[in-house]
């Protein structure tokens, strides 16, 4: 379990990191290292150069921007988990964080690493897809961004250009109203990757009528997916248990689910419906507890 030898560089800006990547096709970025180092140890990855971006100052931090929230790529999971700004602006992300690995992984792993690695069962990509986040990145031409629905192509394959550095993720300001969220997951062991996970956010008006809903499923197929048909089914309705259950089952009916040694495709589809329903119920219950629409 020893990696092949490689060179190591610690540039102090994103531009310098991108230049190193552009000069060497076998160079790899490293931030928290909680995914890349195991791959190095098993020699599944054999880079010639590791470009360490963990201490590039511009990549770290959680900032309010345009009444939404931007989280820098090297912000560690534990910082996201405990951030009051994240709880305020992106409560669904705060809800999902305790499901990411275990305390030792959350202490070192970064949100940008999780997004860029793109494991289909990982929680952070699922939340980003569910909420329609924007991926921020930079290459030789400067800063750019991409909607998350164009970002994930296949398991651990993203649309990020080869010599680009993911710099962060932006969550837009939510629809005003009484907001609640829910997150459920089934895995073989605590802290393991999800066999299936479901995330949901619901916004209600003062009469408990749904004015916005978003939900997504992770772990079931090649990439996390947003359940787009839910909005048509639920916006304008009162979210009774029956309505939510029927909508969840209908929304996952066309889901492409994977068959592997952990679970069959049929099992994943059934569990996806059940977890989506539970996440939606939790989100509705929390939104109904929220006192008024003023808090957003």
């Amino acid at each position, binding site marked *: *379990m*020893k*990696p*092949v*030898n*490689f*060179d*190591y560089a610690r540039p102090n800006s994103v531009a310098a990191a991108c230049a190193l990547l552009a000069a060497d096709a076998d160079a790899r970025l*490293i931030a928290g*290292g*909680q995914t890349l*180092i*195991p791959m*190095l*140890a*098993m020699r599944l990855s054999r880079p010639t150069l*590791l470009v*360490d971006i*963990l201490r590039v100052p511009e990549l770290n931090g959680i900032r309010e921007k345009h009444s939404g929230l931007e989280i820098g790529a090297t912000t560690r999971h*534990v910082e996201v988990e405990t951030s009051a700004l994240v709880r305020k602006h992106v409560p669904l992300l705060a809800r999902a964080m*305790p499901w990411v*690995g*275990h*305390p*030792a*992984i959350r*202490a*070192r792993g970064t949100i940008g690493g999780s997004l860029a690695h793109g494991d289909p069962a990982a929680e952070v990509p699922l939340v980003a897809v569910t909420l329609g986040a924007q991926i921020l990145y930079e290459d030789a031409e400067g800063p750019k961004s991409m909607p998350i629905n164009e970002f994930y192509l296949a398991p651990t394959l993203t649309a990020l250009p080869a010599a680009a550095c993911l710099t962060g993720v932006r969550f837009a300001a939510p629809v005003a109203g009484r907001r609640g969220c829910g997150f459920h997951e089934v895995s073989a062991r*605590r*802290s393991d990757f999800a066999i299936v996970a479901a995330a949901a956010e619901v916004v209600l008006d003062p009469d408990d009528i749904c004015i916005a809903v978003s939900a997504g499923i992770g772990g079931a197929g090649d990439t996390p997916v947003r359940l787009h048909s839910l909005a048509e089914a639920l916006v304008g309705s009162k979210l009774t248990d029956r309505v939510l259950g029927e909508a969840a089952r209908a929304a996952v009916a066309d889901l492409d689910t994977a068959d592997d040694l952990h679970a069959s495709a049929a099992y994943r589809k059934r569990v996806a419906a059940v977890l989506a329903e539970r996440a939606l119920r939790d989100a509705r219950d929390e939104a109904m507890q929220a006192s008024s629409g003023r808090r957003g």
Partner: protein
Amino acid sequence: MQVSLHVNGTLHTLEVEPRLSLLDALRQNLRLTGTHAGCEHGVCGACTVLIDGEPSRACLMLAVRADGYAIQTIEAIAPAPGELSVLQDAFCETHGLQCGYCTPGMILAGHVLLKQNSSPTREAVVEAISGNLCRCTGYGQIVDAILLAAERLRAGNAAKTGGRP
């Protein structure tokens, strides 16, 4: 490459290959063999150390990236040579170890929990050690050890601050 590591209060300057893990640097270069090498790819938790007070995998940290952090290993947990911390003592008392391979990692994971939360629930203890595998005990006695230590530390602190013993 040269790297300076701040381990258990002492600064060490080492010459290492970039691929050397902090785990191997601690064990081979610094002879701090209390940190155990298990799976070497981040699954088992035997190599847990504290990096700036947070439990972390030494096998997932390259030594060349570990400069500038305060690193603590199991060797720094006992109050004095030949003594045991309250938590270490509790592991002995509840039979919280059998072969002992996972024990340094378990102690450090428990140590961090008890610093953050003086009255953890059983559930919180299970969560705190969720990244540490034990193939002997079945975990029951390990959870008991951390809860026993929590109780003793609370009693000790209450006595110190003049509360009821």
